[in-house]
């Protein structure tokens, strides 16, 4: 762990599609990039025991999570030849159909972005203390567990 405070990855509420479009636009000045790969996690309206998920409420051990996100970012830059990488995760309520995770990698060449993106997403799922409460339409809930 270094002394520098890690970047805050969290955004309150869902990640808007306009924000994603603007992030893409900002990379058009970086003309060494040949390939972008974007992963978006979207909240599913799963039906569990006859009840439909209407939203997920995310909480996190924020300080630890940001340290972990930072470690994943540094590890990915070491493993893969990436020009840029951006990670955003929602906190609070994200309704079914809305986006809760946005991971964006860019590289001069395409082969590397596929491997890098999958690595980063799997690491996030496994390593980062974020907790999703699946809220049903009748206001009951259950705690989500990543597979």
């Amino acid at each position, binding site marked *: 762990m270094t002394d520098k405070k890690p970047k805050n990855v969290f955004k309150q509420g869902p990640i808007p599609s306009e924000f994603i479009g603007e992030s893409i636009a900002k990379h058009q000045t970086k003309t060494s990039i040949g390939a972008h790969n974007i992963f978006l996690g979207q909240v599913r309206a799963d039906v569990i025991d006859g009840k439909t998920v209407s939203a997920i409420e995310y*909480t996190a*051990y924020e300080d630890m999570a940001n340290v972990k996100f930072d470690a994943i970012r540094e590890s990915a830059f070491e493993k893969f030849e990436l020009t840029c990488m951006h990670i955003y995760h929602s906190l609070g309520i994200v309704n079914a159909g809305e986006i809760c995770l946005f991971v964006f990698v860019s590289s001069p060449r395409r082969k590397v972005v596929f491997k890098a993106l999958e690595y980063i997403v799997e690491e996030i799922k496994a390593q*980062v203390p*974020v907790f999703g409460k699946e809220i049903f339409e009748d206001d009951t809930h259950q*705690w989500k*567990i*990543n597979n």
Partner: protein
Amino acid sequence: MIITIKYFGLIAEVTSQEEETIDFSGNTIADIINFLNSKYPDLKNKDFQVAQNQELISEKTKITGQEIALLPPFSGG
């Protein structure tokens, strides 16, 4: 030794709070888990990991007196 303990997700539901500060005299993480299992009997059936100073640790780890967190299974993304 004064320790701050943080609870998240399902674990915070069991303890009915997100954080508490206790004066504790045990040595290892196992000691603190035993103490919390007595205080919150429903904890025993729950799956969680323990972090100390924002690093996941095992039950044998010595308590350093800093921040301890009880973390249920992760479900980000």
